[in-house]
């Protein structure tokens, strides 16, 4: 059976390396992007089974911009927003307007991340 593809979007290559290694150890394939344009381009070509997207990248609300674009183009793909909760609440990013599978508060517990990804993919397949 094909391994499920999880796409990680984060401007920190060390987070991508370590979170990717966690997900691969849990049996997923991973792909990644360091910025908005790279993320949108790659996801349009290789539609993943799940997306983990950081909030703050080029701008403090880049994650919201990316998720809005992905919600529009790939409405079936579950997306998790990763952030320190303070970023979102302090700047009132209207997260309730996004179609999110969930919110993962940093530092993300690896077991929680794996379980959340597995659940969202399973739910999506039913």
């Amino acid at each position, binding site marked *: 059976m094909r391994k499920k593809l999880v796409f990680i979007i984060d*401007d*920190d290559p*060390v*987070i991508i*390396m*370590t*979170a990717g*290694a*966690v997900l691969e*150890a849990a049996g997923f394939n991973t792909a990644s992007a360091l910025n908005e344009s790279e993320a949108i381009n790659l996801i349009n070509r290789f539609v993943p089974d799940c997306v983990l997207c950081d909030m*703050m*990248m*080029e*701008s*403090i609300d880049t994650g919201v911009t990316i998720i809005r674009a992905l919600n529009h183009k790939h409405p079936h793909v579950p997306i998790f927003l990763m952030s*320190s909760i*303070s*970023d979102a*609440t*302090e700047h009132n990013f209207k997260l309730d307007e996004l179609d999110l599978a969930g919110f993962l508060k*940093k*530092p*993300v*517990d*690896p*077991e929680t991340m794996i379980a959340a990804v597995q659940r969202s993919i399973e739910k999506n397949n039913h």
Partner: protein
Amino acid sequence: MSKSPAHIFNENSSLDSFKEAIRLLNGDFFFDTDEMLLLGEAYFKRYPDAFHHRDRNEVLMGYEIVRICVLEKAVSGYDQSVKDCLRSIVKDVSLINRHVSSCVKDRGYEQAYAVYSEIMQKINEIKYCIDRLPLGMVKERFIGGLAIFYNISYIVNVAFKAQKNNHL
């Protein structure tokens, strides 16, 4: 030499010289919530944050400064082989299986796992201090810096389980 990472940061203009100065202290530096706040304030004074068009290199440097402090605090008191091992796996997680295997071979499974557990206990104590930082960008940098240690811990734990299964 000062035991304040904030002072050390102000005295060192490059990341490499900051890292070297912190390493020379062998973990004997202050790193409680107040000191974290001072370090964050010193960092943002030198590299002010922006809402749009943030300087990615400066943001990543913030995470790296935190990682240097967390790592050196976590490995303080251990011999050079443990320090070298942790410093290398933080740079490249693909080395974890090899290092865990080597560590188990040298020390035995129980002692090697005890070292890992003690290091994670120290990292959890650092997280306790980070959790007490006020909401804001200083806390964001500390959380971003800390996050990788939990991912690395997970993979190290998986490697230990594999070692244990190999020896059963």
